[in-house]
């Protein structure tokens, strides 16, 4: 007995200098380093966007349209207007269609072959490159109407938003407890009443979260609006005219040689990043409160 005790404690204790343990500890250090390396670009982007974009973060940014190439001052009002137009159109198209499609998947055909096939198509659709979605809407709308427009840009963004909305809304609906549905049906509610009065309200925080993330993502998308909304130096009078978006202006100004425009590009990037940050933090809070 007396010498079995030290034997056990010794056998469970690894020698930290044994090759096996050394290898294990050094791999742990390496994987920690990987995590550090992975978030460095994020902090660098945040730091640059805040430090460079903040100098132009004033009232002018929101009240003046973009300046001519060589002049000073100016703001991003026309880009904000275009972003508002295109993202609103995309939201109005994608959210109702997406949520209703999710209702079908989660409420009426859940766990069937059809649901799996549509889920598969949704995932593949979300993998379609954004520039191809832009090409698609260009050929669908711009070539047929012979007109670049905020509307076409909105449709292109809707194609990209749709799978995001469907996926998050389906997940949110599937989390609603089955008992709620049974109670509603037990009280004699129709399927429409069950969905509209009981299930959708219960899933609302999740659906709003998805929509918010979709909106933030759509506002930052550039490739699909490049040759659908095209961009404009002035305020647009209607959604049937070309329009600039924040993302387009960041692209154009970043590649221009003028310091004033480059500064505006950073300010625009700051706005885009703020949008993403706020949407992500809000959605996190919404989900946390529910849990």
């Amino acid at each position, binding site marked *: 007995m007396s010498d079995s005790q030290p034997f056990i404690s010794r056998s469970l204790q690894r020698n930290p200098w044994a090759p096996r343990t050394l290898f294990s500890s050094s791999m742990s250090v390496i994987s920690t380093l990987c995590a550090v390396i992975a978030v460095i670009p994020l902090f660098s982007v945040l730091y640059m966007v805040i430090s460079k974009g903040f100098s132009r973060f004033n009232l002018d940014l929101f009240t003046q349209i973009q300046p001519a190439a060589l002049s000073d001052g100016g703001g991003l009002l026309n880009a904000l207007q275009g972003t508002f137009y295109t993202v609103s159109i995309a939201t109005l198209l994608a959210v109702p269609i997406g949520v209703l499609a999710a209702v079908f998947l989660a409420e009426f055909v859940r766990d069937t072959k059809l649901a799996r*096939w549509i889920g598969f198509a949704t995932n593949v659709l979300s993998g379609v490159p954004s520039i191809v979605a832009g090409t698609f809407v260009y050929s669908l709308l711009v070539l047929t109407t012979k007109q670049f427009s905020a509307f076409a840009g909105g449709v292109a963004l809707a194609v990209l938003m749709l799978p995001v909305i469907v996926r998050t809304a389906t997940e949110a609906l599937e989390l609603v407890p089955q008992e709620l549905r049974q109670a509603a049906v037990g009280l004699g509610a129709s399927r429409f009443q069950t969905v509209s009065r009981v299930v959708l309200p219960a899933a609302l925080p999740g659906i709003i979260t998805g929509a918010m993330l979709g909106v933030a993502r759509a506002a930052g998308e550039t490739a699909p609006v490049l040759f659908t909304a095209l961009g404009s130096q002035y305020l647009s009078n209607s959604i049937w005219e070309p329009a600039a978006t924040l993302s387009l202006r960041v*692209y154009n100004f970043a590649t221009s040689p003028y310091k004033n425009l480059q500064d505006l590009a950073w300010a625009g990037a700051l706005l885009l990043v703020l949008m993403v940050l706020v949407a992500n933090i809000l959605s996190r809070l919404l989900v946390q409160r529910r849990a």
Partner: protein
Amino acid sequence: MALSSEKPVIASEMRRERSPLSRKLDTGFVWLTGVFAISLAVILLTIAIQVGYRALPAMQEFGLGFLVTQRWDPVNDIYGALPQIYGTLVSSFIGLILALPIGLGVAIFLSEDFLPTKIQRPIVFLVELLAAIPSVVYGLWGIFVLIPILRNMGVALNGGLSWIPLFSSAPTGPGMYVAGVILAIMILPIIAAISRDALVAVPDTLRQAAYGLSATRWETILKIIMPAAFSGIVGGTMLALGRAMGETMAVTMVIGNANKIKPSLFDQGSTISSLLANQFAEADGLQISSLMYAAFVLFLITLIVNVLAELIVRRIRTKV
């Protein structure tokens, strides 16, 4: 007796309550949602048909030669997309090579019990945020931050190792290697997230059994957990590859947009998506059709990669 006489009354009352119209409306609602759900698949098909249809004139004019010729000449209406296809493949490949080991490291770091959940959560959030930053912001950052840093490293590599074809030219600023690094940053969160899902899905009994046999933590990870999660990791990597090949703005802003094939990574190049981004707004005639052809090729490549990835990833999801 009392019981059996009550039942039919309730049933008939319920039947009376709902008129045929309301029942029709209810079925109509189910149909409506069904139509929207199926429209997702229809959109996918329409994209292929629409883009393919517009590409037909260029397909007839150049055939498959489009894929293997190097000339993109709007003045004489002669088009070939080999440099862009080459650029798409090479830049995504560089991105993948850089992102895969780091992404895997992150996934392991965030899935095994290195950290208490309280610290793990914010790091997961940060990695998610990395994926949410708009592409155009990465492009802007790439122009003003990444290019100056990488140029210095490139000059050093070119100075010491210029006999290797990969490093044979002096870096001028934008180029294939910058695009590769930006792509690596952008696809890293995808690899990390999906690999993490796959690692977390490995049953704990496997870990306990390995530890019970006195394996070290990393022997367990490398010999037990990684093989078990292998298909998920491959699926995530392919999904990331598909994303890298379609990525447009950041790449367009840092790759230099030169229509040529050069062996050196420091030379400027272009990708299918950067070609589309640069030329579409001002194109007309056969050029539009040729761009559609290029877009169609990109669509097909990413479709194949994505479908394969989806099938592989789906296998782990159904196992969980």
